[in-house]
């Protein structure tokens, strides 16, 4: 970075120290100035000595003291007060050009003159110091105002970094390194910083703390950048030339740190808002795409099924062979439709944004609809349903769980010989409710049945059994979206068994019978 060596540039250094020199330097010039003013007062008084009385001349010297105090501060004012008394005594008091005092009353005048001179000089110098302090404060406020305005317009972490660097370089001749915790990256400004400092900065960012950490060697300051809600980053200030920090500088640095922290927090929320807007847009796009695909794929499939089946209705009636071809076309189209459904459902559920319509329901209802939906696939199998009478209600999305059950039942029908028994079973445990589909077929050929839940995985490779291997992946996605688990295992009968486990929750309230709005109508 071009700014990393800014410290060696003498111009900003001089600039930064000029206000300090004005307030604090009381060099030989000031003392000399005080002496000059007193001498000038004496010289002005000399020609007037004849026509003016002593009191007026004293006032002339008081003026010299005030001027010295206002111009050069307390020390020179004290010098001027003493010098004025001395010069007045020597030059204007009889006997002139001697320290002796002829009139005793004038000794009192001289004493008063010294006392008043000291007091006036002190007050003037205090006033001057206060004025300086006020203007310094005003300058500080203006600087903070400038930096806050610049930070207010910053829209990226880089811009904040830029503003902070320029400000610290101009005001304190210090070199800044900034760390931010914003989502756009924990962006570290590339600058020469020792590993110790970097570690301290990371520490400060983690822990925070009101007081800046001051490292003794090298005099670096490590400051947490505290935003209104959280710590937003850390800042390291280094000034090798002048390692110690004055109180006024520390106040300035603290104020800047707070401003930078706020700016970083603002940018943090800008980024969060932008990211979520992007996410919403992406989600919208995905939904549009999915519903577009579903419509575009399903419509021709629906036509295919319908038209193939209508062939049988044409006059004259088709031959037996033609009818069976039409039937095959319809059957294939239906299977393809089922695959498209699985694929689209999987995409929908896996996007993680599917809206579950969670409802309490007796599991028999879903079992009933699932069995009805694959009635034709199950005609050559025995079906056995076991649901205890006191089975608690399940809480899930009935439509999606029906998809799972239908897929499992169709799988069971597909992979077992006709005449096999398929069992659907619901079991309640203290913490879990299980829904199992098992069969007494040949079981899993794979030694790792869990792999079946992966996409495009099938029990037997290259088998003639149709199916793209999406069904079980969809089952798992749906069950996991419900916070449940699904596993495949060997059944006691040696066949395959799929177990869905859902967390058991407190059942919902049921209103008493008399809450009916319609009249009681007991049979």
């Amino acid at each position, binding site marked *: 970075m071009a700014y990393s060596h800014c410290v060696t540039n003498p111009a900003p250094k001089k600039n930064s120290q000029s206000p300090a020199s004005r307030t604090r330097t009381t060099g030989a010039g000031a003392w000399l100035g005080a002496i000059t003013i007193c001498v000038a007062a004496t010289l002005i008084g000399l020609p007037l000595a004849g026509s003016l009385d002593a009191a007026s001349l004293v006032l002339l010297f008081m003026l010299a003291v005030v001027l010295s105090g206002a111009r050069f501060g307390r020390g020179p004012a004290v010098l001027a007060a003493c010098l004025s008394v001395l010069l007045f005594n020597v030059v204007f008091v009889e006997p002139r050009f001697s320290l002796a005092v002829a009139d005793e009353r004038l000794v009192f005048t001289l004493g008063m003159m010294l006392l008043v001179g000291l007091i006036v000089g002190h007050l003037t110098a205090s006033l001057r110091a206060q004025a300086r302090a006020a203007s310094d404060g005003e300058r500080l406020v203006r600087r903070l105002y400038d930096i806050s305005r610049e930070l207010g317009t910053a829209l990226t972490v880089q811009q904040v970094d830029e503003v902070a660097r320029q400000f610290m370089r101009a005001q304190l001749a210090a070199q800044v390194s900034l760390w931010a915790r914003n989502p756009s990256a924990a962006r570290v400004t590339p600058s020469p910083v020792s590993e110790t400092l970097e570690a301290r900065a990371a520490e400060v960012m983690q822990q925070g703390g009101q007081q800046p950490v001051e490292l003794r060697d090298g005099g670096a300051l490590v400051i947490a950048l505290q935003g209104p809600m959280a710590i937003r980053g850390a800042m390291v200030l280094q000034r090798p030339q002048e390692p110690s920090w004055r109180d006024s500088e520390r106040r300035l640095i603290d104020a800047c740190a707070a401003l930078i922290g706020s700016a970083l927090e603002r940018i943090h929320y800008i980024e969060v808002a932008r990211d979520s807007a992007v996410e919403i847009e992406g989600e919208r796009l995905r939904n549009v795409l999915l519903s577009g695909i*579903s*419509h575009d794929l*399903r*419509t*021709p*499939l*629906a*036509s*295919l*099924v*319908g*038209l193939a*089946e*209508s062939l*049988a*209705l*044409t006059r004259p009636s088709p031959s037996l062979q033609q009818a069976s071809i039409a039937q095959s076309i*319809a059957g294939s*189209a*239906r299977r393809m*439709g089922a695959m498209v*459904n699985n694929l*689209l*459902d999987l995409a*929908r559920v896996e996007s993680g944004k599917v809206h579950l*319509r969670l*409802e*309490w*329901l*007796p599991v*028999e*209802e*879903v*079992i*009933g*609809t699932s*069995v*009805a*939906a694959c*009635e*034709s696939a199950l005609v050559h199998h025995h079906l056995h*349903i076991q*649901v205890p009478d006191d089975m608690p*209600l399940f809480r899930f*999305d*009935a*439509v999606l769980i*029906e998809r799972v059950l239908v897929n499992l039942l169709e799988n069971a029908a597909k992979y077992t010989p006709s005449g096999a028994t398929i069992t659907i079973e619901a079991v309640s445990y203290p913490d879990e409710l299980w829904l199992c589909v098992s069969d007494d077929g040949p079981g899993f050929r794979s030694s790792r049945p869990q792999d079946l839940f992966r996409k495009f995985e099938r029990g037997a490779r290259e088998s003639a059994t149709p199916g793209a291997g999406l069904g079980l992946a969809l089952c798992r996605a749906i069950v996991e979206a419900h916070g449940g688990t699904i596993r495949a295992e060997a059944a006691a009968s040696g066949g395959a068994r799929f177990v869905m486990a859902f967390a058991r929750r407190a059942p*919902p309230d*049921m*209103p008493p*019978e008399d*809450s*009916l*709005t*319609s009249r*009681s*109508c*007991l*049979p």
Partner: protein
Amino acid sequence: MNLHQETPGARVLVIEDEADIRHFVRLALESDGHEVTEAATLERGLIEAGVRRPDLVVLDLGLPDGDGVDFIRTFRSWSSSPVLVLSARSAEHDKVRALDSGADDYLIKPFGSAELLARTRAHLRRRHRHAGGDEALLSFGNIAIDRARRRVSRDGELVHLTPIEYALLLKLTSHPDRVITHRQLLQELWGPVHTESVHYVRVHMGNLRKKIEADSSRPRWLLTETGVGYRFSPEGASRQGA
């Protein structure tokens, strides 16, 4: 085909933007002896509905020029003819909306001609049955409901139903073949406050099935329409139209 004699030459209006689907729906319905009118848009559909006074409407929900639900609302303002909605799967929300607006039934695409004809026959039959008037005695399978005396019997034996179960049974059986949504049942039995508490209906429905059905997890009469509601099937037909 004695079914033909039950539903002679009804006027059916098919509102669907896909020409292929319209075509096969027409083929299927005409093979059943119905007179079919086609419309590709909602606007055209409303005009045809006004002119032809159809006995049944087959309506696709996703029309290019508007929401099919709007059609149902408008159509219901003057006609009580059954409306059969065609909808994509995984659009339960749309189906429920259509049913709540006055549609009678739905078919999920892709559907075959057999499913279509089974549904249209059932709904057209209802039209004729209505003419027969409301009898106090209703029976299906081994179940008899005496609505005058509020008695339900199974194989001649009295079945004890709770008031809610009886009300549920009555509501479903008085609208045969029609899909009644959860919301409609909740509204009627519990009032408008509880329209989100679907589990009330489900639990009582489960109990009712245990008393009415031979196998409550494979119901014959009181069928579940997943995510939508329930349907009473007087023929005891399974979904596959056995």
